[in-house]
């Protein structure tokens, strides 16, 4: 469906992206994940024919973006990071204008406005001035114009940027609903957004795709073992004792105290890095030591770690880790106890 081969884009002497090689299949929802300045927007602008590549090829349904940009544009709907809206127009007029720009007939435009208004839940504001709309509705109208002409490929640049939590959930549902009928490429620097919305993730760093796969594939490929977050209530056993219990479990490589995962008096939380799945062993050891377990689960930050490893500069990654965690030295087994064994 979309074939990107050895794509480069330079702004003057500065390389913005490249080399980028990727393939996106029909009906997929693909997330382009990267930090600010990684090259996400440039990649999407090239896909949407807003920019031309310096070198390399991009083909949409076999049509080259440089050789036949107008044919490619017929197949693409694009929502940039700032929705391209004319404030003085009413939503219905704006959508009609966008439809006519794409060569749609009057009857088709009327039919599609009703359909996309239902899909994007903009039916109630169709006759409102765009200037009077909230940020969330502007994003929705932006998506409505992008899908109005039934494009094969929908390109969305940070569609949840600036939305409130309720709008984020609604926007996720909307993006998910576009999959299947459309191929969707959505960019974000927010990991949870991408992992919850997309079938596949392309991680971009310094203008290059450094990893590609589903969340599970990336975790499996890039994380050795498993990280478990544990939240406990301090009782008779103090921190040092708890850390000794955790560190003594077979397979545990590292124990780090982290910010408490839940509020409460005497609550401490640890992140345990292990070479294998140690959840049951940890549970048994803590129960035997009579420590109150509030929660014990695979770390939600696991994929975040993958993302940081892949996309952040090494120094930035170290700083981020230092800020969040305090490493607890793994306790050495007591030699005296060994000697007491029969």
């Amino acid at each position, binding site marked *: 469906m979309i074939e990107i081969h050895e794509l480069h884009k330079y702004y003057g002497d500065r390389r913005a992206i490249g080399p980028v090689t990727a393939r996106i299949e029909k009906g997929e929802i693909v997330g382009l994940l990267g930090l600010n300045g990684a090259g996400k927007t440039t990649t999407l602008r090239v896909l949407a024919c*807003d920019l*031309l590549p310096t070198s390399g090829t991009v083909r949409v349904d076999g049509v080259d973006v440089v050789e036949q940009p107008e044919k490619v544009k017929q197949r693409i709907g694009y929502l940039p990071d700032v929705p391209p809206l*004319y404030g*003085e127009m009413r939503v219905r007029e704006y959508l009609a204008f966008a439809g*006519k720009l794409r060569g749609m007939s009057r009857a088709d435009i009327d039919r599609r406005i009703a359909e996309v208004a239902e899909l994007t839940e903009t039916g109630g504001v169709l006759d409102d001035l765009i200037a009077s709309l909230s940020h969330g509705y502007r994003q929705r109208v932006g998506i409505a114009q992008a899908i109005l002409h039934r494009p094969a490929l929908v390109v969305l640049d940070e569609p949840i940027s600036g939305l409130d939590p309720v709008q984020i959930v609604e926007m996720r549902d909307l993006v998910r609903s576009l999959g299947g009928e459309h191929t969707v490429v959505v960019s974000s620097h927010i990991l949870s957004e991408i992992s919850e919305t997309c079938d596949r993730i392309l991680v971009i760093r310094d203008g290059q795709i450094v990893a590609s796969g589903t969340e599970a594939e990336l975790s499996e490929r890039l994380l050795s073992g498993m990280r478990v977050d544990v939240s406990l209530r301090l009782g008779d056993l103090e921190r040092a004792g708890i850390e000794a219990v955790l560190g003594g479990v077979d397979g545990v490589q590292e124990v780090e105290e982290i910010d408490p995962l839940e509020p409460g008096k005497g609550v401490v939380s640890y992140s345990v890095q292990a070479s294998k799945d140690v959840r049951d062993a940890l549970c048994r050891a803590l129960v035997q030591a009579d420590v109150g377990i509030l929660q014990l689960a695979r770390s939600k930050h696991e994929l975040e770690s993958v993302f940081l490893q892949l996309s952040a500069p090494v120094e930035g990654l170290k700083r981020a880790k230092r800020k969040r965690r305090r490493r607890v030295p793994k306790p050495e087994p007591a030699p005296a106890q060994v000697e007491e064994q029969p």
Partner: protein
Amino acid sequence: MSRALLIARRELYAYLRSPLGSVIIAGVLLFDGIYFYWQGLTEKLLSAQVLQQFFYGASGATMVASIVLSMRLLAEERQTGTLTLLNTAPIRDRDIVLGKFLSAFGMIALTTVLTVYMPLLIFVNGKVSVGHIVVGYLGLLLLGAATVSIGLFASSLAKSQVVAAIVGVVILVPMLLLWALARATDPPLNTFLAALALHHENQRAFMVGTLELWHVVYYIAVSYFFLLAATKSLEARRWR
């Protein structure tokens, strides 16, 4: 062409809905009215001379209005991000430029037509021919088209409307002052420079009611040149 007209219609709609369009129309009418009264009606002049004075004043107002109207055409779209909608729609850059040009030129034409009551006053109360009035207005429209094209080109280069206006003036003023340079030079250079001046020699023919093909061709050529330059500038931005 239909997409260009679509863009032109939307732009005209934007002008007429925003205060900018009304302010420019009001400003031009006010200036032309005062100038007409001050230069034309307070001195003892022949009807044809009054009409000539009117066209002289109106040409100045037309140039200023053209630059103000055109400075926003592409720079504002770039500023607000709406240029992306046009860039990613299946239309050619020349259609975008043509549509923008037609909208600003339409506003200039509307403004110019609204001043027609002044020449009509001379026509009713004095002795001027319809041909003089028609040719004078043709000159104003051609000058407006050329100035809008210059402003549109400037707008295609700049990221802000103010910078676009400044760039437009920087291009316009030397083109106006070519006649002064022509006076300071010897033949045959002076004839050549005078023929290239945007206003003096080329516009005067229309003001006195003379229709000469060369002057018409001159304004069309200037308009075409700057519209082409604006199109190329728009195309070049995709490669940067």
